[in-house]
C-alpha cells in the first residue's frame, strides 16, 4: 500500500516537472520553409543559440524583442541557404562565442572541453594508486 502512494507522488512530481518545462515557444507557423530540412535546421539553430538578454533561455523559447529580431535574422539567413557554420559566424562576430550554447572547440575553449576528461583521469589514477597501497 505504501509503495503505491510513493509511486503516485513520484508520478505527480514527474508530471509537474514536464508541465513546467516551457511556457513560451516560438510560433513555427510564422516561419515557412520550402523544405523540411531547412525547417529542422532553423529549429536546431534556435535551440543552440542563447537569448543574450535572458541568458539561460534559447532563442527558441524566449519572447524577448531582441530574440524575435534574431530569430527573423536567422530565418532569412536559412532562406538564403547559408550553412550552419556561416550562421554561427554571423552570430559570434556580433555577440561573441557566448551566444552559442554549445561552445565550439577552439583555443579559447580548450580548457572548457578537456578539463573534465583530465579531471576524471586524474581521479582514476588517484583511486588506482590508493587501492594498490
Amino acid at each position, binding site marked *: 500500500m505504501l509503495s503505491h502512494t510513493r509511486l503516485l507522488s513520484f508520478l505527480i512530481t514527474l508530471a509537474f516537472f514536464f508541465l513546467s518545462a516551457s511556457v513560451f515557444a516560438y510560433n513555427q507557423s510564422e516561419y515557412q520553409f520550402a523544405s523540411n530540412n531547412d525547417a529542422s535546421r532553423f529549429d536546431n539553430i534556435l535551440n543552440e543559440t542563447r537569448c*543574450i*538578454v535572458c*541568458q539561460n533561455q534559447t532563442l527558441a523559447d524566449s519572447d524577448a*524583442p*531582441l530574440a524575435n*529580431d*534574431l530569430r527573423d*535574422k536567422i530565418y532569412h539567413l536559412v532562406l538564403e541557404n547559408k550553412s550552419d557554420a556561416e550562421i554561427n559566424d554571423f552570430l*559570434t*562576430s*556580433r*555577440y*561573441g562565442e*557566448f551566444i552559442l550554447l554549445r561552445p565550439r572547440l577552439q583555443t579559447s575553449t580548450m580548457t572548457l572541453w578537456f578539463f573534465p576528461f583530465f579531471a576524471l583521469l586524474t581521479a582514476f589514477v588517484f583511486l588506482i594508486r590508493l587501492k594498490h597501497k
Partner: protein
Amino acid sequence: MLDLQRLKLFLPFLFLLALFGLLGRELFYATPNEPPSVLIGEAVPHFQLPSLFSPSILFTPKTFHGQISLLNVWASWCYACQVEAPMLMKIKDQYHIPVYGIAYKDKAEDAKQWLQAHGNPYALIGSDLKGDVAIDLGVYGTPETFVIDRQGKIIYRHIGVLDQKAWDDVLHPLIQQLQKEKL
C-alpha cells in the same frame, strides 16, 4: 615522512578551498550581463541609415572619421535613455565631444517628440527602424554607448545609462588618452 602524509590528508580540502575561491569570485565579481564586445578594436561595421530629421541625408560610418566621437543607441520608449539624456547634453556642451545617435526601433515622430522634451545632444541621428544596425553592432538593448576613435574604430562600449561616474572613471580618461595620440 609523516608531514608528507599529513599534507596528503589536507590536499582535498585545499582543492575544495581553491574551488570555493573560484566560485566566489564568479559569484561576486563576474559581470555576465556585460560580456566584452567582440567589436572592440574593430572598425564600426558598415551601415547606412537615413537621418531622422532629413531622410535624404545618409548616416554612415564615414561620419566618424577624423574625430573622436560617441555613438549612442537610444529610443524614445526607453526609460533609462531619459535618465541618460542630461549627461549626453553635458558631454556635448561641456566636454565638446560629438555624440551621434541611432534611434533604435523608434517611430520618427516619437523620436522627434522625445528630443523636444529632453533636448537633442546628437550631431546626427540615424533611424534604425528594424533594429538591423543594432544587431550588426552587437547591441543588447538601449541605451548603449560606443567610443569611436579618429580612424572610425570602436574603442570601448558602455552598456546601460552613461552617468557622471562612468564618464569620469572610464570614458573621459580614455578619450583624453585618445586625444593625446598624434593626429
